[in-house]
């Protein structure tokens, strides 16, 4: 049967379950938009900015594990996706971006809205395609989904010239059922058995083991395996920032997260361990600080699907290259139950000696208290999406993540502006889960135009805006590392966010004291629709503990000198 390129693309998306699309049309991609109405299975959500489309697709991907799709036109539409693709790339989030391109005869001629997006997106995509014939579309779509979702996931971009969307080619739909294989692309599954045995020996010998659980646990859905490993051998678990919600934080073996703004006992446990089992984590510099002083007393086992991660930042003793879930299943039957009572008692002592998560008593409204209240009111069951900055760290520290895959944050790229569209995408992906976006007034204003998208589609996201009228994290760094030489850190003309939300047609409340925090959260939760709470928090408030950049646990600052 004859089909157009646009029809082939739509069928491909449907066949692979990529039916939620975030996008904005434009000249080069209009032939695709002209086809969408023929496919009611495809749900297109019209956003307000392509960066929003990309983060929404990413939020959808992270929340569901299935690739979110975004559409953009050529030129500026395509370049607006770059930040979102980079964010997804750094955090190994599967996502498919479709961009329109100028028609084939116009390519290379600086045509109107022509940009070499496959060139521009090289470093921020796992792979990308420029499709020069409609007949290639089915194979490209198939490969794109396969590549985006397997191995170490990541964003894939498909750039399609306008006339290729309209080109008609003969197509046999049975093609969709065919398996594909890509020469040289064989994501590893199981680890080398000799290495597995070596890992078993190290675990048997260890008296002070710690598991460092990363995003890979979540990506490979290895929650049960991780839990089994921790429980059967009694190994305490610290998570990376993106590993948050891979292990229930209300579990006795949970030590929360270590690193730059991690809790002291987690950083100390890593430092004092004799064995670190890193699972699907990449020893990011926010965790290690000075790599030469990181966890020096320990042997290291590193489970990762990406061979390029092995020995990249930290030299390890036993690399286990494979899919986290499969490797853990290789390991588990070989491990005998064990206890580490002294070690766990020791860590309990670290916890009581360094009460990192204690919220100080103050009449001022502070972000920590807001997050803690949100955690209590939602019983640790909400999906939390954040921006980047102080509010992100408080959200990581003071929310008790009890439900799997409930933390969505830009860890690798640290993209402000993620908090609004990613929350939108996450809620579209999980309409039955509660989704709270914990936002800073800085990042919120980068992408708040998506409030219109949220209201238009009645996407029931709740916003806890931790509004300090400052780029809080910048203020903190200027205070601590630049002799309080404050510059470009204050937002002195913030809008009235309640009025702003109302203007978009969203319900909103403002809270400026401790008593009103919980009732406001309850009201937001009870409301059947999107909701914003503008928490007017104290601006002079820092995130602690802190290990300054490039330092080690020896330089950990538990709190500021003035008791802040």
């Amino acid at each position, binding site marked *: 049967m004859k089909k157009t390129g646009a029809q082939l693309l739509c069928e491909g998306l449907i066949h692979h379950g990529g039916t939620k699309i975030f996008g904005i049309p434009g000249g080069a991609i209009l032939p695709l938009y002209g086809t969408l109405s023929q496919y009611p299975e495809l749900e297109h959500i019209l956003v307000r900015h392509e960066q929003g489309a990309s983060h929404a697709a990413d939020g959808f991907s992270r929340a569901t594990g299935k690739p979110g799709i975004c559409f953009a036109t050529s030129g500026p539409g395509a370049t607006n996706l770059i930040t979102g693709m980079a964010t997804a790339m750094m955090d190994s989030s599967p996502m498919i971006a479709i961009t329109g391109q100028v028609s084939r005869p116009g390519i290379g001629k600086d045509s109107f809205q022509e940009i070499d997006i496959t060139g521009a997106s090289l470093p921020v995509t796992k792979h990308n395609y420029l499709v020069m014939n409609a007949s290639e579309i089915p194979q490209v779509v198939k490969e794109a989904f396969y590549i985006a979702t397997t191995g170490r996931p990541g964003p894939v971009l498909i750039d399609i010239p306008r006339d290729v969307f309209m080109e008609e080619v003969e197509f046999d739909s049975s093609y969709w059922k065919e398996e594909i294989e890509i*020469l040289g692309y064989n994501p590893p599954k199981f680890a080398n058995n000799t290495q597995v045995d070596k890992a078993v020996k190290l675990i048997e010998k260890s008296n002070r083991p710690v598991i460092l659980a990363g995003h890979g646990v979540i990506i490979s859905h290895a929650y049960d395996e991780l839990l089994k490993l921790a429980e059967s051998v009694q190994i305490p678990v610290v998570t990376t920032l993106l590993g948050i919600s891979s292990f229930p934080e209300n579990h006795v073996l949970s030590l929360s997260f270590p690193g730059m703004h991690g809790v002291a006992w987690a950083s100390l446990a890593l430092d004092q361990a004799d064995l670190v089992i890193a699972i699907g984590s990449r020893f990011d510099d926010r965790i290690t600080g000075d790599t030469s002083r990181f966890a020096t007393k320990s042997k290291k086992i590193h489970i990762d699907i*990406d061979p390029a991660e092995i*020995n990249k930042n930290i030299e390890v003793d036993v690399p286990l290259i494979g899919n986290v879930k499969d490797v853990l299943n290789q390991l588990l039957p070989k491990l005998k139950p064990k206890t580490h009572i002294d070690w766990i008692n020791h860590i309990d002592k670290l916890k009581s000696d360094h009460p990192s998560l204690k919220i100080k008593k103050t009449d001022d409204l502070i972000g920590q208290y807001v997050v803690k209240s949100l955690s209590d009111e939602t019983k640790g069951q909400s999906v939390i999406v954040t921006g980047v900055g102080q509010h992100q760290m408080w959200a990581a520290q003071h929310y008790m993540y009890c439900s799997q895959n409930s933390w969505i944050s830009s860890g690798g790229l640290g993209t402000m502006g993620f908090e609004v569209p990613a929350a939108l995408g996450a809620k579209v992906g999980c309409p039955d889960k509660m989704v709270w976006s914990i936002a800073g007034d800085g990042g919120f204003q980068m992408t708040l135009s998506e409030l219109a998208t949220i209201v238009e589609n009645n996407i029931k996201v709740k916003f806890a805006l931790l509004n300090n009228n400052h780029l809080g994290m910048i203020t903190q760094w200027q205070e601590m590392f630049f002799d309080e030489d404050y510059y470009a850190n204050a937002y002195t003309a913030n809008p009235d966010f309640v009025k702003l939300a109302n203007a978009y047609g969203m319900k909103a409340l403002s809270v400026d004291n401790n008593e009103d925090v919980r009732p406001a959260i309850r009201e937001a939760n009870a409301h059947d629709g999107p909701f914003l709470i503008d928490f007017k928090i104290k601006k002079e408030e820092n995130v602690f503990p802190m290990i300054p950049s490039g330092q080690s646990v020896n330089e950990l600052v538990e709190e500021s000198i003035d008791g802040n």
Partner: protein
Amino acid sequence: MVTSNTGSRTVIALVQNRAGVLARICGLFRRQGFNIASLAVGRSEQKGLSRMTFVVEGPEEVVRLVAAKLDRLIEVVKVEDISDKEHVYREMVLIKLNADNEKRGEILQLANIFNVKTVDVGVDQMTIETTGDSKDIESLLELLEPYGVIEVMRTGRVAVLKSLE
């Protein structure tokens, strides 16, 4: 991380023969600030696949990281840093130089030890060709210098692992 001495390293990659592959690969070297000292690309014995030989200057660990990242590229089928393995390599050079009738014989005699072939002869210039390792080529160029070298065109290095003895 301990960094070893910076030296030149030879990396071989088997890649799909498609548009844009070279740009992807070079992008990874560029990101590390590596200069690609030489690069040779050509079809391999397998249909649709090309083989590339890179010579790059950089610390071993960083080259190892780049090689691992190269392997991550979808179109790269296989990568190997062969610097520490026994391998043989060759480069080829075309040299155009001043050579009137009088000098020509002299040049050829000199060059004979280097297995040189004449590829083009003009009124008072000639072009010769040779293959060898970099050192051979350097010495030949040095030897020819006094005659007036007009243009030197060198290929990148091509390398293969030695067969088992």
